[in-house]
């Protein structure tokens, strides 16, 4: 897939994510009101609307587009989710400098996770978005590197893994973030950040299916390298995944 198609896929994935955040606004806020400060849905919705607007003026460069989304989230989401989502995307976007390939998407996903853990000082089991991102990233890498899955299949497995990660946040006690102030009272509630991560990954997968299954017309003359085909999925994963 050429760069322009990659850029188009990134824009489309961002739009799908923005729609999803708008649709889930109340659901996310409800989850957050149980163990946080009841603003996650509104904040994510505002952030993705801003991202869409900013993408209008951005160049068709995959790294630049993902970075633009990151900066928009940092600026508009606020709280901790802004720097966690946005900062991780900004940092990871550098991996797409030479475009999106299976390889660069793995690097992207890992960089995203690494930044998230570092910035949030959180690890698996703390009841945060790390619990969704870690299984997704590990599963994605394993699928690509060990199982030789194609990127679309790998992303599908990653989304399944994220879903199990989100389920895992419910029965555990929060150790990071605002929910940790509740101590044992946080048990029994699903983590809002892990949940929004899953929603974004699901949208990424849906758009990746469209592009990687060939539903979208790709310029036959573009230098189509099977690795690059994986890119859209990965790149999208970048947006929402981790």
């Amino acid at each position, binding site marked *: 897939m050429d760069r322009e198609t990659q850029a188009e896929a990134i824009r489309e994935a961002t739009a799908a994510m923005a729609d999803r955040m708008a649709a889930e606004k109340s659901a996310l806020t409800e989850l957050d009101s149980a163990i946080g400060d009841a603003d996650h849905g509104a904040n994510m919705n505002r952030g993705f609307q801003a991202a869409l607007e900013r993408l209008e003026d951005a160049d068709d460069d995959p790294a630049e587009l993902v970075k633009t989304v990151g900066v928009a989230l940092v*600026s508009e989401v606020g709280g901790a989710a802004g720097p966690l989502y946005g900062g991780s995307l900004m940092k990871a976007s550098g991996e797409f400098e030479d475009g999106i390939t299976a390889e660069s998407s793995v690097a992207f996903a890992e960089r995203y996770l690494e930044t998230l853990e570092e910035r949030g000082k959180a690890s698996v089991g703390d009841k945060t978005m790390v619990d969704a991102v870690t299984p997704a990233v590990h599963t994605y890498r394993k699928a690509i590197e060990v199982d030789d899955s194609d990127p679309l299949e790998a992303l599908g497995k990653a989304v399944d893994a994220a879903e199990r990660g989100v389920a895992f946040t419910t029965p555990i006690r929060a150790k990071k973030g605002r929910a940790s102030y509740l101590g044992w009272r946080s048990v029994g509630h699903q983590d809002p950040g892990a949940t929004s991560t899953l929603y974004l990954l699901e949208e990424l997968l849906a758009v990746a299916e469209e592009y990687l299954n060939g539903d979208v017309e790709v310029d036959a003359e573009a230098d189509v390298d099977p690795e690059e085909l994986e890119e859209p999925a990965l790149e999208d994963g970048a947006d929402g995944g981790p």
Partner: protein
Amino acid sequence: MKKLINEPDAVVDEMLEGMVAAHPGLRRLEGTEVVVRADAPVEGKVGIVTGGGSGHEPTHAGYIGDGMLDGAAAGEVFTSPTADQLSEMIQACDGGEGVFCVVKNYEGDVMNFETAIEMAEMEADTDVEYVVVDDDVAVEDSLYTSGRRGVAGTIFVHKVAGAMAHRGADLAEIERVAEKANDRVGTMGTALTSCVTPEKGEPTFDLGEDEIELGIGIHGEPGTERTEVMSADEITDHLAEAVLEDLDPAEGAEVATIVNGMGGTPLMELYVVNRRLQELLEDRGLETWNARVGDYMTSLDMMGCSITVLELDDELKELLAAPAETPGLTVTEG
């Protein structure tokens, strides 16, 4: 609750406008909630910046001026500024020698500053270092915080970092003295009443008519214990002893102190507290080199105070004594 506000949403913006109008040495970065020195960036000097939620005035922008800060970013009330604004501030205060950030230890502040530093490095290649101030001896891992909170002792960190930059020191030297000041300072506060945020318009927490909260944070977050109201001397002893126990200053050490008002406390009462604090320090064989009393880092309209003690050495003393001229703190020669 009666308040001198127009719209809760407009408070921060309108406050900054009024602040800049009052102090010609300050300038607002257009389209942001960032205030910088009117002459920023100062060429050839490391820029010293800070930022945090609003509601703590004169913190943060009130310490902008010669010998202290070059810039300060204001978030919404009790909310961290966003990383993009922090990054703009950092870039606007870089006079070619890099920028040093004084960050108070709250999860939101630290995350946004770390992200902003990456943005500034990416966008403008700015050299940036930072210190995370955690002087509150009352609690570990409170609301909003992993580890200790950053409170009024931050004023001393602003002062020594600002004076060091004014001397022409580089980023590493500034970081060293800022870390040293943070290591040697301790603070603990108490609330007699809750603060009232503009948004909510009612007390943030319930405190009975005859109760006080010891170890209170600057956002109304809980402290260590709630007790029956005590006399000024008893409260002072409680706070000061907790600070000294944590700090464990050397026998005969020189100290600088702050009795800080939380926004709603009459100055008269702060002086009453300072009287007892100085007696107690003398009893402990400590020598107060400089005692400050006033509203330095407030919590909106909360009644109460905090006590800060900094154990000095020659270098810190010189840096605190260096001239500074800001809306919130002025030190004159000699």
